[in-house]
């Protein structure tokens, strides 16, 4: 175990990527842009010795999709890198070549939000059933189940 990261260290390393926020005691958040996300993640990984990706959380704010990459390491400090991508063009580069565990989280996000991770080796369906209709992403805020659409499983009688 090493000492927790201080605000000076995080701000000094990450301020080139965007605003650095001290959320609470051992939590920091860096808000950056989709163009810089790969470099920001590389820096968090190398310079801040955050060797574990805790998870990638996603939220639909109705204006944009937010992605939060949460990292931690031996210093027991949680560093979050946040980006927002436009809802009408939900595309960003994959992180799975830099961080192996990102691959499975990206597949899940692709399934539920329809965000495309360019360069992902196998963006196949993982959570929704295989006969789930294309282009239906249930965790988007504007998604409503439609009585006429067949969402997979056993087809109702008479179809």
């Amino acid at each position: 175990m090493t000492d927790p990261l201080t605000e000076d260290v995080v701000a000094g390393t990450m301020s080139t990527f965007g605003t650095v926020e001290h959320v609470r005691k051992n939590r920091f958040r860096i808000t950056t842009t989709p163009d810089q996300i790969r470099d920001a993640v590389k820096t968090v990984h190398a310079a801040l010795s955050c060797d574990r990706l805790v998870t990638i959380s996603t939220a639909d704010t109705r204006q944009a999709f937010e992605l939060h990459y949460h990292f931690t390491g031996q210093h027991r400090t949680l560093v979050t890198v946040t980006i927002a991508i436009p809802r009408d063009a939900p595309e960003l580069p994959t992180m799975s070549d830099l961080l192996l565990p990102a691959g499975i989280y990206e597949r899940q996000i692709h399934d539920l939000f329809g965000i495309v991770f360019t360069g992902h080796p196998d963006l196949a369906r993982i959570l929704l059933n295989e006969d789930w209709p294309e282009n239906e992403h249930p965790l988007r805020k504007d998604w409503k189940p439609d009585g006429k659409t067949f969402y997979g499983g056993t087809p109702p009688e008479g179809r």
Partner: protein
Amino acid sequence: MAEVIIPIGPQHPALKEPVNFRVIADGEKIVRLELTLAYTHRGIEKAAESRDFIRVLPLLERVCGICSHSHATVFAKGIEEIMQVEIPPRAQYIRTIIAELERMHSHLLWLGVAGHEIGFNTLFMWTWRDREAVQDTLEEMSGNRVHYNMNEVGGVRCDLSPSQVRAALARLPLLEERLKKYVAMLEEEETMLLRFKGVGKMTRHEALAYGAVGPTARASGVACDARHEDPYCVYAEIPWDVVTDTNGDVYGRTCVRIGELRESAKIVRYCLEHLPEGEIRVPAPKVAPTGECLSRYEAPRGELVHFIRTNGTDKVERLDIRTPTLANWTSVAMCLAGQHLADIPVIVAAIDPCLSCTSRLTVLDNSTGTGGMITFDELRRRNRARWQEEERT
């Protein structure tokens, strides 16, 4: 020899829950693994957005039948953080006691399943019998064997009576005795040594690179434990240790889980003996202010994370659940490569995969030999009668 694709699952005698593996094999050696987890998706994250905080907790317990308390606690503590509600110490202790009992029952269950996967069914029978002692304690404390429903935003729902504490403490010596037996078995039991040692090996570096969590990572020497990294409940103030191992194989994962069983028994004993007096809940507001929280929790299988966002109403705006099993799949896929086909069950079982669980209540009356479903009222009546009898004695 050409590569062969072997489909396993979703329905397969060797699997406990529906999952689909496509194993790409070269002879007896595994080359690669592809998987689909889609068979038990129930849309709980979406459903959580339409229920208020009182109704969402029972729903979240049903994410998993084994670590139901984990999901409820991680959510409740996240919402409490957003609301800035401080829950009373007695509630913190009760949450910890249930959490550690849950870890014990989960690890004992795992040990049995791992024994079963290597054809060592005696171990399965032993551990599942010992697990009953833990289950009985949980049932006495909460009224339920599976979904304890102990949490609410602002504290816990049930208090522990002195007789419950006494009964739980009385069961611990037996468990501690049995755990010593399992520790001894790890060193001398040939079946376990032969089938666990060197299987599914993962170095410290690999465990970090594959994002493994929980006992899977700790068995490779990665000392990650959310109870230590981001202490919640009472873990910062009570004595306990993070259990790690350096073997990195299925044997190491077994050592870690048995070590954690002993730690959990220690924590439960400490908490029961030092249970503070006082309230078990504080009144929490009905609505949460707009906010956001990443709530971390060490579930039996590893770090469980809920990303919660609130919008000033009594419902969540977004709940993103990352279960430990999802984090561990990458490591399974990676460490299966190069292994033998026959070792798939035990390597997969070694992360203790939990896809989803359901449970029904069936009662068997030992005295009359009759069984069947009973109504909830009848169950309540029987429990009350048993309680009253126990309180008298």
